């Protein structure tokens, strides 16, 4: 059980980063995990930063277990302020790790606190909890891209897996 409830996860659960719904934003989504009732409302604000799309803010409110709530906090730390490309890569790495059934440990240098979720991969019922905020972010980011001023050619979302979508 200690591999699941790592101290980093409990810290994020007790002191969530970036929590609260903020302005401005282009898209807001509501995702739920229908098997256990975890919910998240999430907003994404993308900005055109001299031709590079940047995740200017991710803001959220949610309720749920320690895994889903800590994951939202770690997601905020991992994605806010990054370029959209970097953020999508971070999502890809996180998703790959938690869906790996324990095969992929994750790399602390590139993933930061998100590696603490490697233990979740061994608890199939909790993978959805961990992915809930990240997939909500992806959904909101995709919707936001249509609304970012002066971004004509947006990076492709190809390669981001849609399976495991958690809004039921």
């Amino acid at each position, binding site marked *: 059980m200690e591999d699941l*409830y790592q101290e980093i996860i409990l810290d994020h659960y007790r002191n969530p980063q970036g929590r609260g719904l903020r302005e401005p934003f282009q898209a807001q989504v509501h995702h739920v995990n229908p098997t256990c009732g975890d919910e998240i409302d999430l907003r994404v604000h993308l900005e055109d930063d001299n031709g590079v799309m940047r995740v200017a803010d991710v803001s959220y409110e949610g309720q749920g277990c*320690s895994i889903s709530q800590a994951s939202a906090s770690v997601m905020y730390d991992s994605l806010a302020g990054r370029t959209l490309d970097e953020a999508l890569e971070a999502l890809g790495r996180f998703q790959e790790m938690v869906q790996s059934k324990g095969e992929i440990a994750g790399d602390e240098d590139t993933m930061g606190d998100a590696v603490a979720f490697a233990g979740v991969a061994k608890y199939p019922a909790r993978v959805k909890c961990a992915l809930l905020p990240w997939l909500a972010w992806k959904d909101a980011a995709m919707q936001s891209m249509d609304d970012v001023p002066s971004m004509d050619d947006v990076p492709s979302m190809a390669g981001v897996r849609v399976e495991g979508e958690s809004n039921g």
Partner: protein
Amino acid sequence: MSVAISPGTIDVRRVREDFPILDRSVRGGGRLVYLDSAATTQKPLAVLDAERDYYLTSNAAVHRGAHQLAEEATEAFEGARARIADFVGARADDVVFTRNATESLNLMAYAFSNATAKAAHGAPLPPGAERFILREGDEILVTEMEHHANLVPWQEVCSKTGAILRWIPLTPDGRLDLSSLSDLVTDRTRVVSFTQQSNLLGTINPVAPLAQAARAVGALVVLDACQSIPHMPTDVTALGVDAVAWSGHKMLGPTGIGCLWATPETLASMPPFITGGSMIETVTMEASTFAEPPKRFEAGVPMVAQAVGLAAACDYLDALGMGNVAGHEASLTAYALEGIADVPGVTIVGPADLVDRGSAISFTVDGVHPHDVGQVLDSSGIAVRVGHHCAWPGCRAMGVPATTRMSPYIYNDTDDIDDFIQALGRVRQVFGEA
């Protein structure tokens, strides 16, 4: 609900020998403490043996072949029906086999939407089917504690027919608030469908007054007995209701079989639900007529092995005595409620006393999400359920997003409850809440 209670008359040690799964270890060597029987029960060897024997000796498609095996299989299947019917005090012909309680409840709900759709263009209906024809503004009454299986099908009926769904609200301690019953049961009420025992809260509902109020306005009464038939002696014909749904897998039986009992008049007046082979009387290219109940509602090759297994489960439970089962559960429930009350920061969701309450106990732990509570218990080998228990509106009414639920059965004893309470006491430490 008056239940014959004879406490402590189940020899749990002896019973556990019939459930080898309870001897396995979990999570790296810990003893398994299975407290999730409201979700599904474990199966005794007698049930597994009965299924295996059937496949080893008599397996064939029932009601079809001209050969000896087909005869034996048909006999096994119909014999199982008679045995299961007898377990609940019913006639064999009034028991329909389904996949599970969910399908049984859908069968009832579809009788309404199908009859309404057929009546709209004058298609033939069985005599007496008027009871199942809904008009816009007719009302269907459920309760706020229903399992989704007894809620969503009725919502669907409403959206197909223009009927209106109403519900009996809950009191803060998780009982039905019957103070406005006379406003809720009106001459527009056509169906009253409710659970005898809540899988979320453990509450046992007063069937008789609800059924009487419903019948007084001519409404059909459907009872979800999924959480009651496995736990107390039941005579479905004495409940004063028109139909009763339950699942085999929550009463030691196999998965893949459920039952619907209904009065002969009710079954006879219902149009079919799932159609195809075995449920017909005659078939031409233009149209078909349908068999008498129960076959009218059993299309295709049925679940013979599961029926045989469920009959064996009835034998097993009757050998223990359902009064003893109820008594054993009542004493475990009392013991568990007392133990839980002594754990700081734990709140029971549902009745905290023993009056009209079954053995499923939902609770929350201050500062720790139910899912995390379940995970910590699991690390001690204790299997409980977490989430909204397919009763999401009931959770909302109780002001909780979810709960953790323990639900003991005949193979649990006070040692299991002690282990559970001890592990529960550790939960808040893990999360630094205590």
